[in-house]
């Protein structure tokens, strides 16, 4: 399991494009596209060409700029500079609707369907000139035909509500076909699909390609990319690093392009001596989400959680904190067996969970920094009349402001006004203030700039040194490798491997995360 396999071979023999993609006019080109969000340069001088009948993969870390490019090509956001050329002529795409009319469609991780409309309607909803009346019979017939052509069978009369993600994606693809798109963008389409569903999805993709559609395929799963793509482009920090035909590159090389510089920048954490056993988890699980996860966490240890998006890492975190309690298995905290049914209980036991989603789940944006920091421990800040002692709050906030060097003119300003990095620090402060013995960090550096990232890493090291046991959930592999003492790898809801620091590297972890053959592992998951 742990020995790296260098000579890469795809388990599925890819169907070759009917026409070779070379030597023909590109359907879509971007010239020198640039976009910046206030401080950070999201995209810089991106020039890319998509040819008909090819699958063009886009690789890159989180925040490398992939999604920004997609938003620009689909007309959701406007670039600061640069131009888009569609089938030879320059176009300005002011809205997603316009892009769609121009033959550019996108399929996102969570498809945007109308839950109350039928499958058939969802396929045809964005058709403009389909007449005043809905010809249900005709619509159903055509919808069924399109789906049949894709090789999937869904009851086109049923509402989209309650369809599985895979089914929803098939609907989205059918929609794209019905619009006979020329460019189809797929953003992490496989993120939460079972391996079996992935193989089916790829069959659809290849079908589209053979019809001459040009597909921009964005994924974190390098193996998949090399299964499906004709060309591979790698982004890093808003720059286009490389574009190579698949034959001329390899997963290893792509990964190097993706993470190379960062490996240099990230200085590995010097791990201290492993403290005594803090938390031990045995056979933890929740139906249909994750099963039989077991691991130990020691004081002062950073335990990295690696794996693909949707592998169930976050769900383990939520279970340990009590938001989605586990239904099987046992948790032992410093010798005592414990049950955690609610976040409140988790907190009282000294467990803290720093969510991956700052804006939705983490912070109350309109409220002040100090209010956010003290929220979980509010009962500690009351005078004998039960009123909040704002002086105490401020004191705490100020302390963290110094300790984590949160950049703000005052701790009374609304969190919404802070940069991503500083918001992240506020989140950390909020949970450090609960004096946790176990700190679960979920994607702590997602979408924050390199500088802030380094700071957060330093903080983590500090906390570990203070003897806190830290679980670091991150899709940013180099990050995990740089600061974890051990790395636990999850795949499809299972803990598949735990690496000691010395054995953990890009290849071993990636291999474990993807499994030898997703097809085989897919079946037992499904």
């Amino acid at each position, binding site marked *: 399991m742990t020995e790296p396999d260098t000579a890469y071979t795809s388990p599925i023999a890819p169907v070759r494009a009917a026409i070779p993609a070379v030597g023909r006019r590109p359907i879509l080109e971007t010239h020198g596209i640039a976009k910046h969000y206030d401080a950070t340069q999201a995209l810089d001088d991106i020039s890319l060409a998509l040819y008909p009948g090819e699958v063009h993969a886009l690789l890159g870390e989180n925040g490398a700029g992939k999604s920004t490019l997609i938003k620009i090509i689909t007309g959701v956001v406007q670039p600061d500079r640069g131009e888009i050329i569609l089938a030879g002529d320059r176009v300005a795409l002011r809205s997603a609707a316009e892009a769609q009319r121009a033959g550019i469609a996108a399929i996102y991780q969570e498809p945007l369907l109308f839950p109350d409309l039928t499958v058939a309607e969802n396929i045809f909803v964005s058709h403009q000139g389909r007449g005043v009346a809905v010809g249900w019979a005709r619509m159903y017939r055509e919808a069924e035909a399109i789906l049949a052509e894709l*090789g999937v069978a869904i009851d086109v009369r049923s509402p989209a509500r309650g369809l599985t993600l895979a089914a929803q994606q098939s609907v989205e693809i059918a929609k794209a076909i019905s619009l006979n798109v020329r460019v189809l963008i797929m953003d992490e389409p496989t993120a939460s699909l079972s391996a079996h569903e992935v193989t089916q999805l790829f069959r659809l993709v290849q079908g589209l390609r053979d019809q001459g559609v040009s597909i921009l395929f964005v994924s974190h799963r390098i193996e998949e990319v090399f299964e499906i793509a004709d060309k591979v482009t790698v982004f890093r920090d808003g720059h286009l690093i490389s574009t190579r035909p698949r034959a001329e590159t390899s997963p290893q090389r792509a990964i190097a392009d993706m993470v190379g510089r960062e490996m240099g920048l990230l200085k590995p954490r010097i791990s201290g001596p492993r403290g005594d056993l803090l938390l031990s988890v045995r056979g933890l699980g929740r139906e249909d989400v994750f099963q039989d996860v077991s691991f130990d966490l020691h004081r002062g240890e950073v335990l990295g959680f690696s794996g693909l998006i949707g592998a169930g890492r976050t769900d383990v975190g939520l279970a340990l904190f009590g938001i989605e309690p586990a239904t099987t298995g046992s948790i032992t905290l410093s010798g005592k067996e414990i049950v955690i049914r609610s976040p409140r209980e988790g907190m009282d036991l000294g467990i803290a969970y720093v969510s991956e989603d700052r804006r939705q789940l983490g912070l109350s944006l309109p409220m002040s920094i100090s209010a956010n920091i003290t929220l979980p421990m509010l009962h500690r800040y009351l005078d004998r009349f039960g009123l909040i002692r704002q002086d105490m709050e401020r004191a705490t906030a100020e302390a963290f402001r110094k300790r984590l060097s949160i950049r703000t003119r005052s701790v009374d300003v609304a969190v919404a006004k802070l940069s991503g990095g500083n918001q992240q620090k506020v989140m950390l402060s909020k949970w450090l203030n609960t004096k946790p013995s176990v700190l679960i960090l979920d994607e702590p550096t997602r979408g924050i700039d390199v500088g802030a990232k380094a700071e957060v890493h330093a903080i983590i090291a500090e906390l570990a040194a203070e003897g806190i046991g830290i679980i670091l959930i991150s899709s940013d592999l180099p990050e995990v490798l740089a600061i974890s003492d051990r790395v636990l790898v999850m795949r499809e809801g299972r803990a598949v491997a735990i690496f000691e620091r010395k054995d953990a590297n890009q290849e071993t972890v990636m291999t474990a995360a993807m499994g030898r053959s997703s097809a085989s592992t897919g079946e037992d998951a499904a």
Partner: protein
Amino acid sequence: MNWIQRRIRPEQVRELSLLLLIILAVLLFGSMIDGYYTSRTFNRIASSVAVITIVAVGQTLVVLTRNIDLSVGSIVGCTAYFVGTVLGHFPDINPLMAILMAVVLGALIGAVNGALVAWGRVPSIIVTLGTLAIFRGLLVDLSNAKTVTTDSLPHWLVDLPQLRLFSLFGLDIPVLFLLAVAIVLIFQAGTGYLSLGRRFYAIGSNPDAAALIGLPIRRLVFLAFVLSGALAGLAGFVTLARFGNITVESGRGLELQVVAAVVVGGVNIFGGSGTVVGAMLGAIMIGTLEQSLYRLQISEFWRDAVLGWLILMAVASDAVILQRLRALWGRADLKYVAPAARGATSQ
């Protein structure tokens, strides 16, 4: 099971069960009240249902788009009073003209709501809470508190409630009820078979997606309010015909009954799902309760208590039972089959 699933949707199951509930209610009242099964009872229920139904249809359209129109009661009052006054002065206006007048006036008032919600970006509950008071206030002031009296109205109008086109199983069908039914059928067809109608569902069902594919959300919301106003106007005309003399208070509090009818009828208060027919069933349920409980000694006072409980149960069952059903139905899901040959769709 699967056979049923392909033909009947959970929403329809819900509507059927409501229908069942109505039948049960009628049987119950029949057993409690002697001489209940008379054409008279039917007419009474029918004509009281007529008003609520017509307004409820408009309300349904608005609610589908994730909005609400609380001003309908005032619109009904205004149109009833206005048309009544005009007919009082010019008794020989052609009936169709009179109806048209009511509808257009209603539509204009509705347009005010619509514009404020769609382009003024004021939450519909705030807008219509305000206009509920404003329209009523204007009516009282402009009318300087006169009453429209039956005598001032032309006979064709006063006699309208008694007019029966034909009778069914010995039950005379009041023409006003037929009007309501016609409205329901038209709008059921419109929301079911016009792409315009389907778009009301779309924007209520997933506004983000609707915006992404470039549906004209503002214009659709505006249209919904205009239609709601127009139908309230029509209902105003029916009210005029039914009660003959119209005080400036006519139609006050109607909005509650209407919203109740819509909710009981299974239209999701947060938009996206529900049907016009469902709303009508809700109106019939409420009308039956209202008119029947009047007839039991004292129990007239139980009407509201029962109605309130009914609404709560309707919402609760939507939240709990309907979800279960949908989950059950949802299972009928995707299968992979051998791809059909290209050209299967080339037609």
